[in-house]
C-alpha cells in the first residue's frame, strides 16, 4: 500500500527511484514497475562486480585509502561496493614480509582487472540511475497494467 502511494506521487517517485537504483542496482526499475529490466540490471551488475572481487580479492580491490579515484567509480555500485568495503575492513592487511601476503593482496594483472571490473560496474550503475530517473518521470505508475480500455466496447 505504501509503495503504491509513493509510486503515484511523481515528486517522490523520481528521487526515490534514483536512490533505490543507487542502493541496489536495478531496484529503481523494479520500484517503477519495470520488472524485467530491473532483474537484468540486478543480475548483470551483481555478477560482474563480484566476479571482479573474486579476481583480485576483496582486500585490495576496494581500497579507498590508496585508490581514491577508482573508489569514486566503485562506490556508484551502491550496496555492492559498501558491502565489499565493510568486508575489506574486517580483513587485516598482512605484513609485506608475511608469506601469506599474496594470498590476500593481489598485484599486477589481477589487481588491474579487478579494479577495472568493479569501477566499470559503478559507471554502468550511473547509466542505470539516469535511465530510471527518465523512466520514472515519464512513465505513470499504472502504465504496466496495460492501456486503458475507456471508450471501447467489449467484443462479443
Amino acid at each position: 500500500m505504501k509503495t503504491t502511494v509513493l509510486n503515484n506521487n511523481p515528486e517522490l517517485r523520481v528521487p526515490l527511484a534514483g536512490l533505490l537504483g543507487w542502493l541496489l542496482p536495478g531496484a529503481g526499475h523494479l520500484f517503477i514497475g519495470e520488472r524485467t529490466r530491473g532483474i537484468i540490471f540486478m543480475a548483470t551488475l551483481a555478477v560482474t562486480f563480484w566476479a571482479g572481487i573474486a579476481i583480485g580479492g576483496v582486500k585490495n580491490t576496494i581500497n579507498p585509502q590508496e585508490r581514491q579515484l577508482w573508489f569514486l567509480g566503485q562506490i556508484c555500485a551502491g550496496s555492492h561496493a559498501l558491502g565489499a568495503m565493510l568486508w575489506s575492513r574486517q580483513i587485516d592487511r598482512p605484513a609485506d614480509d608475511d608469506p601469506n601476503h599474496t594470498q590476500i593482496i593481489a598485484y599486477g594483472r589481477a589487481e588491474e582487472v579487478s579494479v577495472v571490473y568493479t569501477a566499470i560496474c559503478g559507471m554502468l550503475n550511473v547509466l542505470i540511475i539516469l535511465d530510471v530517473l527518465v523512466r520514472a518521470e515519464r512513465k505513470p505508475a499504472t502504465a504496466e497494467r496495460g492501456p486503458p480500455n475507456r471508450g471501447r466496447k467489449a467484443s462479443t
Partner: protein
Amino acid sequence: MIDLHLLATILIQPVTLGRWQQMLLLLPLCLAVSIVYKTTKCANVRDIPVAAIVSWITIVIGMYAVGGVLLLIYHWSV
C-alpha cells in the same frame, strides 16, 4: 547448499592471471556493458538479447583492433 567458507575464500584470495587470461577477461566485461547499454536503449524487452550480442561482438572486435594497433605502434616505436 552453498559452502559459505568456500565462497569467502574465493572472494578473499586473488587469482594469478597470465597475459592471455587477462585478454580473455575482456569478453565478460564487454558482455556486461553491452547488456546494460542495450537494456536501457531497447524499447521492447524481447529485442535485448539479439541487440546485446550484436553490440558485444562489435565492442570486442573494436577493442581488440584498437589494442592490436596500439601494440604494433609500441613495437615499432621501441
